[in-house]
């Protein structure tokens, strides 16, 4: 009998600690599937963030090295400069990559580091309990924005991926969402392309993944997925933000 579905080799057989409905579980699986399909498990090194995904090394069956909060792309730079033939990816949340780690992230992109960044945007600080993130939507509730994010008081959401497009070393930037089955398929395609960019030595690649956080949004999973699909995409529209890979010309 033909096996048509199985767990990715690049995921350890551990149960995810993520909350019910959390997008991390889906995104982990997509990254692992891509690593399997590209046949790079033995030469891939992951750099997990501080945040909910800090325990990513319990799931990804590849070498992983912990980075201080926000510094994943600097740590990844050090790794990649030594291990030029290896595949280095970071897995970072919005607070990690777009607040505390903004400088490290923009400059890694600007240097054109041959690294793949997976940027999980759920509009909240999940691990610390739902404080305002750089990507929290206007009016969206958080434990540090009484009455919801007030742009005049708290600033507006930051579109880091768009900022990265200005960095000359970034080659491929795409925003995707895992809120719908169609979105998940697109997300996997984008993640695979972002790894391919690194394998081809083209430069910096990043996939921003809009991802629900039912627990901190105080929604049930179904409502959270709908909200991701309908509301988050208004501020963070999905689609290719930059692509100078030249792949499509073929």
């Amino acid at each position, binding site marked *: 009998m033909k096996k048509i579905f199985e767990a990715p080799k690049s995921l350890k057989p551990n149960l995810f600690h993520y909350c019910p409905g959390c997008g991390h579980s889906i995104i982990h699986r997509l990254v692992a599937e891509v690593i399997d399909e590209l046949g790079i498990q033995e030469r*891939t090194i992951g750099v997990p963030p501080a945040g909910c995904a800090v325990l990513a090394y319990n799931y990804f069956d590849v070498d992983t*090295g*912990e*980075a*201080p909060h926000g510094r994943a792309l600097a740590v990844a*730079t*050090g*790794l990649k400069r030594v291990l030029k033939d290896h595949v280095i990816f970071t897995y970072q949340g919005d607070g990690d990559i777009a607040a505390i780690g903004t*400088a*490290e992230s923009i400059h890694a992109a600007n240097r054109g580091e041959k690294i793949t960044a997976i940027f999980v945007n759920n509009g909240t600080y999940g691990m610390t309990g739902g404080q305002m993130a750089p990507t929290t939507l206007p009016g969206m509730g958080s434990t540090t924005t009484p009455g919801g994010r007030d742009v005049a008081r708290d600033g507006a959401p930051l579109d880091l991926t768009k900022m990265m497009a200005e960095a000359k070393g970034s080659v491929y930037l795409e925003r995707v969402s895992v809120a719908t089955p169609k979105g998940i398929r697109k997300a996997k395609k984008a993640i695979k392309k972002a790894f391919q960019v690194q394998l081809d030595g083209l430069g910096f690649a990043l996939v921003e993944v809009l991802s629900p956080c039912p627990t901190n949004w105080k929604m049930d999973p179904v409502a959270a997925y709908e909200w991701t699909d309908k509301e988050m995409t208004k501020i963070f529209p999905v689609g290719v933000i930059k692509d100078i890979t030249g792949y499509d010309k073929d």
Partner: protein
Amino acid sequence: MAKQLMRGSHVLGEAAVRAGCRYYFGYPITPQNEVPEYMSSRMLQVGGTFVQAESELASINMVIGAAMAGARVMTSSSSPGISLMQEGISYLAGLELPAVIVNVVRGGPGLGNIAPAQSDYFQATRGGGHGDYRTIVLAPDSCQELCDLTFKAFDLADKYRNPVLIMGDGMMGQMMEPVEFPEPIDPASLPAKDWTLSGAKGRPSRVILSLLLNPKVLEDHNFKLVRKYDAVTREETDWEEYLLDDARQVVVAYGTAARIAKGAIKRVRQMGLKVGLLRPKTLWPFPEKPLKDLTRVVRQLLVFEMSAGQMVEDVKMAVEGQAQVHFYGRPGGVIPTPDEVAHQISHYYYQAGLMEGDKPSKRHGGVA
């Protein structure tokens, strides 16, 4: 190999390259800019990697990444930049990663100035960042020693899987002295490391982490580090003894201050004062035992630092009340002259009645 006349900053860079360092990450800050400048061209020559990072924060985290990959890696900075690196240094210690960090110390606090100082002693020897950890701290006092201790720093870092700090100052970075370099080490000839991230090929996947959520597990890790630090203290404590045989008073100073103190001691020796010098070459581990042993015959110590008084606390702890510990310090980047220090030495020497015939005693200048 013939001696070469070189400035300290270049000595440091050349010694690092010869010690097998092929990765340097740094950010400009005075008075150490000659180090990244030297490394930027030297790394090109030897096929190494130089990255000018966007900040010291980024530099130290690039160091973390390169260390995870098993490379001999270095960064350098000066006081404010080293403050920024403390987060990363704490991680290096927690992750047990080898790295060499050079602090060309300048006057502080805050922006301070760019003159030579020793005011980062506390920061260096107490860890500087968060958590229970130690960094090995080496304090050279000449260009030759800068070369030798840079070699040693890489060896110690690898041997103990721990960050090693080299403490210099702007004086040491700028001064030119003849140096004899050891033969270069081929990085490929260094012993293989069995703990690095290299891809899970033919072995289970590996993780380098410091997040240990279970308190018992973290306590075990902390105690493992303590045992390592104990071994470092036993094996690696290093100091120089200068004219101690007949000394009735001993100056304790390190680095540039020790050079000045030697000049001062030569002057007072001509006046018949029996004064010696104990110069810590490792600031951590601190040479506590030789200092304590000294108090069997010497009861007068003068700690001299280019700071408001930092190492003096370690000296007091080391002698456990068995000697009088005086202090003379010039903070803020002021460089005292040997005459000035000689005046301080003689002041305390006469005050304690240490001159021949003043008060014959086996224990010179007793504290009783």
